[in-house]
């Protein structure tokens, strides 16, 4: 597979995982407790997907690029709110609204944080912005682990070639 195509497939896979996690975790909130289990499952799948991408892409820059492109909606919405750019539009209130919906897969875990407020804002509000880099790093982290080249070989033919 060509390198560009590998990156595209990695991006599509992580978007697919994320969007269906948004839907599943949201419905999971109907059964309190199930949402927390699904949020933990999401983080495990994200980690596994990061490991898979690390093996396929074999380049920390490409893995980082995929992580950034995946969290681009969150970064755009978060930066717009923090810099006040959202107020230039007629839809200012919806930016943080959509940012919260984007982070639905991890909200069950954020909802367990005590309801303290800092400078008139609840802690979960700050988490909405922090989650963008945290999730991107979680996806990127597996690339930092040294991958045994033999572990990535899948067939006997590959082993023969190596020998």
């Amino acid at each position, binding site marked *: 597979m060509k390198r560009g195509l590998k990156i595209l497939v990695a991006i599509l896979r992580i978007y697919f995982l994320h969007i269906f996690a948004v839907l599943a975790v949201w419905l999971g*909130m*109907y059964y309190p407790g199930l949402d927390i289990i699904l949020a933990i499952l999401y983080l495990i799948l994200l980690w596994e997907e990061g490991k898979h991408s690390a093996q396929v892409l074999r380049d920390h820059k490409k893995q980082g690029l995929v992580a950034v492109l995946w969290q681009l909606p969150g970064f755009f919405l978060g930066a717009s709110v923090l810099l006040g750019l959202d107020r230039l539009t007629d839809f200012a209130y919806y930016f943080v609204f959509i940012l919260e919906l984007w982070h639905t897969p991890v*909200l069950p875990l954020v909802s367990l944080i005590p309801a303290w407020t800092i400078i008139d*804002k*609840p802690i979960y509000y700050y988490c909405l912005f922090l989650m963008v880099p945290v999730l991107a790093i979680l996806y990127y982290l597996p690339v930092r682990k040294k991958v045994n080249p033999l572990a990535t070989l899948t067939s006997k033919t590959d082993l023969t070639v190596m020998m």
Partner: protein
Amino acid sequence: MQIISLIRNKKYRMLLFPVIFLILLALIAMDNIQLASGRRDSVIYTYANSFLKGEIGSGYGIASNDKVSFAGLEPGDIVLGGWPNCAYGRFSHAGIYVGDNMVLEGYVDYGLSAQELSHYLNYSELCLLRVEASREIKDKAVAYALAHQGQMFYPVAFKQGERYWNCSKIIWQAYNVQGINLDIINDLWIAPESFSASPSVKILYEKGT
């Protein structure tokens, strides 16, 4: 063990959340089958109808400067405000009056919080409601709402659970735990409109369409 191998399989793990989503969708649909029988007053019907008309948000309007007196409000009363073209009914926002010109309400950026009552003057649609209950029940409902300050606002929060809230759910739950259900149709979600339709409330004041 099988779950671990599912998670590790690069093909199957992509199907986990779509499958979970479909199963939950079916379970929730079965649990709320009564809403499928043409409940035109259900939130989901209102949303769908508004969506077809191109209305998807809480509506927009020009700030109204009408002189409305809130002097007669008592703690536990419900305040509804609305803009034209709101996707989920005549009213887009709700708050429970907690005394001292403050209402407990929900916003994404403030969570559940006490805010100035006066901002309801800006709404073109306004309704003040009194729940028909004893003073003791109303005080308990107010105390319940205030005890949840700082908790998470989530726009599409289901009625179940006590970790996600929207402006209407906190009011509904505050009275529901006291034994007063303000949602007569047992809807999937609760919207500000539900309160004005409840037989357990009396309208103190109303303006708008």
